[in-house]
């Protein structure tokens, strides 16, 4: 009954009609997803959108928020900060109440000031510490920061495994730089200085020079800080050069794109720090994975789960604040304690809601919990 009423209400107002004043309390609630849908990072953007869309579809099926439908619209930022900034202005002029994404820290950082000025809360999937440094009260992370990922990883490698010879290879993009700084600090805090610290560029294709240096150091393990495709190419070329040491990394190293790019044999034994290791860890993740499979015919993974959590947090906050916007909505998000797929979210002043990851290992082309 409620859902029929909601549909009827939604049907009455033309799309975008409700944006005439800020305090629209009828018509659909406009939420934007901003993510790369083209370019090398488009797989990330695709997963993110699938996760967010799934959460919104579930809420709409239950009748939306106070009888209002949630209208989700996707914007393609092409992984480009400039495009992102233009989209941020567009979101403001078209009266979107909130934004989900992007998966790219650099784009989120670029969009941040505009969204803060326009008081549009943003739940991002980025993890760079640069996001925290922005100090925007309207910016929230839907996962842990690089510091959390890499501190957990360094502790495992150094303390639990006793590795002393660690090589590093990271790229100089916003994600890679964040990973580089976070892991280097974590390792040094534990008294280990990496035996070599190689930095590559984001569009580099041949890693012979860096990998030959790494090979000469005979490391126990190699820390890798770059996005899915590049990390895959690095691992593939490393194996061809005869490097047998395992790689260790964060979120990108647990994804199918990374595994496919490098090849199943090459990634065997890769150590991954992640808040979401598999679809079988809890009843919630099993239900999520089943719904994801039913909707898209594909296996769910970390980024979809992150975006799903982020969307659910936003929608919960919209519900508790009865469809508030601006500052009130941001306050409501900060007050939301949410038990998600990635763990228990409780936001602090810095916009970080989750500070724990676990260690997994790739076995037979699949990320499984470390035992």
């Amino acid at each position, binding site marked *: 009954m409620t859902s029929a009423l909601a549909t009827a209400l939604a049907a009455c107002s033309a799309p975008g009609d409700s944006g005439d004043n800020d305090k629209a309390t009828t018509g659909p609630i406009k939420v934007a997803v901003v993510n790369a*849908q*083209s*370019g*090398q990072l*488009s*797989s990330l*953007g*695709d997963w993110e959108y699938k996760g967010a869309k799934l959460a919104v579809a579930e809420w709409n099926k239950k009748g939306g928020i106070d009888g209002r439908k949630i209208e989700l619209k996707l914007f393609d930022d092409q992984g480009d900060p400039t495009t992102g900034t233009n989209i941020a202005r567009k979101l403001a002029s078209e009266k979107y109440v909130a934004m989900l994404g992007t998966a790219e820290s650099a784009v989120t950082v670029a969009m941040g000031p505009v969204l803060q000025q326009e008081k549009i809360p943003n739940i991002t999937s980025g993890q760079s510490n640069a996001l925290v440094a922005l100090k925007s009260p309207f910016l929230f992370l839907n996962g842990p920061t690089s510091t959390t990922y890499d501190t957990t990883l360094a502790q495992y490698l150094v303390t639990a495994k006793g590795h002393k010879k660690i090589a590093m290879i990271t*790229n*100089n993009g916003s994600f890679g730089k964040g990973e580089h700084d976070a892991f280097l600090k974590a390792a040094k805090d534990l008294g280990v200085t990496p035996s070599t610290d*190689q*930095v*590559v*560029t984001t*569009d*580099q*294709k*041949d*890693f*012979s*020079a*860096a990998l*030959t*240096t790494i090979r*000469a150091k005979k490391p126990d393990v190699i820390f890798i800080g770059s996005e899915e*495709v590049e990390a*895959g*190419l690095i691992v593939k*070329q490393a194996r*061809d*050069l*005869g490097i047998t040491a395992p790689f260790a990394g964060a979120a990108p190293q647990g994804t199918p*794109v990374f595994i*496919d*790019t*490098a*090849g199943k044999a090459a990634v065997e034994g890769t150590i991954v720090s992640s808040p979401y290791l598999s679809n079988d860890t809890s009843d919630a993740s099993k239900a999520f994975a089943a719904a994801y499979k039913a909707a898209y015919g594909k296996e769910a993974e970390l980024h979809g789960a992150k975006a799903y959590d982020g969307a659910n947090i936003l929608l919960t906050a919209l519900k508790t604040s009865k469809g508030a916007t601006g500052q009130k909505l941001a306050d409501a998000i900060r007050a939301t304690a949410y038990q998600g797929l990635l763990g228990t979210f409780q936001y602090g002043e810095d916009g970080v809601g989750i500070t724990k990851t676990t260690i997994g290992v790739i076995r037979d082309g699949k990320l499984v919990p470390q035992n």
Partner: protein
Amino acid sequence: MQETLQTLVGGLSLGAVYALVAMGFSLVYRTMGLVNFAHADIAMIGAYAASTFYLTSKLPFAVAMLVAIAVTAAIGLVIERVLRPLENKDFDLMLIGTIGFGIVLQAVAILIWGTTGRAVPSPLRSAPLDLFGVRVRTYDLLVMGVAALAVITLAWFLARTKRGAAMQAVAMDHEAATAVGINVGRSNALAFAIGAGLAALAGGLVGPMLYVDASLGGALGIKGFAAAMLGGFGSIPGAVVGGLAIGVLDSYAAGHFQGYSVLVTFLVFTVAIMIRPTGVFGERTVSRA
């Protein structure tokens, strides 16, 4: 020493691919005086087509490559056909036309293959060769071999066949060529088709080395274009030298300057072009505009 040699090997294999891309640029430039800005995206379509026939249709890699070359050659013919009415009339519009085609091809690739790319496994399963500690992938050798063969075939075609000679004549003076009965339109169409076929060869070969997605053209195009410039735009030997030079330069810059390697590569490139604006083998005979 070992590191230096390993870097050289890594640079040469990608350099061979850049050389193929540069050759396609040069061939079209040579005959029409036109830089085909859609060239890199044709290479991307070629990479996608080759990977589709190889992985999805399960054709042998060599056959998949041939089909991909045929597909892109057809695209080249279409582009030439669309641009033909502008030839010798509006050169700027032709240039913009090729840029437009590039954008269309990217959009088409996303429509057909989606936004997520695909990883192509190497068609050669054999382990890398170990030469005194320098590891050489067998697939890299294959790429270099195929590229060398393509260079020789193209050089032979241009120098020794009637069609090739006709193309050279059109390149030198299209009005005189028309006067002696050479069909300039057909010659241009052939240049576009061969150029596009070379693009597919480069794209298809690079697929198993990199990752195939709609932005692949960007990665290949800028280096291939720089290679053509460095060698001397329009020169086939120049394209080869330029391609290998850019590949090796890129590889060494990555080793010594790490995160600043792109900057260093293009600084060196800029200086080289300033010293020798026409490139290594440059001869500015072609200027149709």
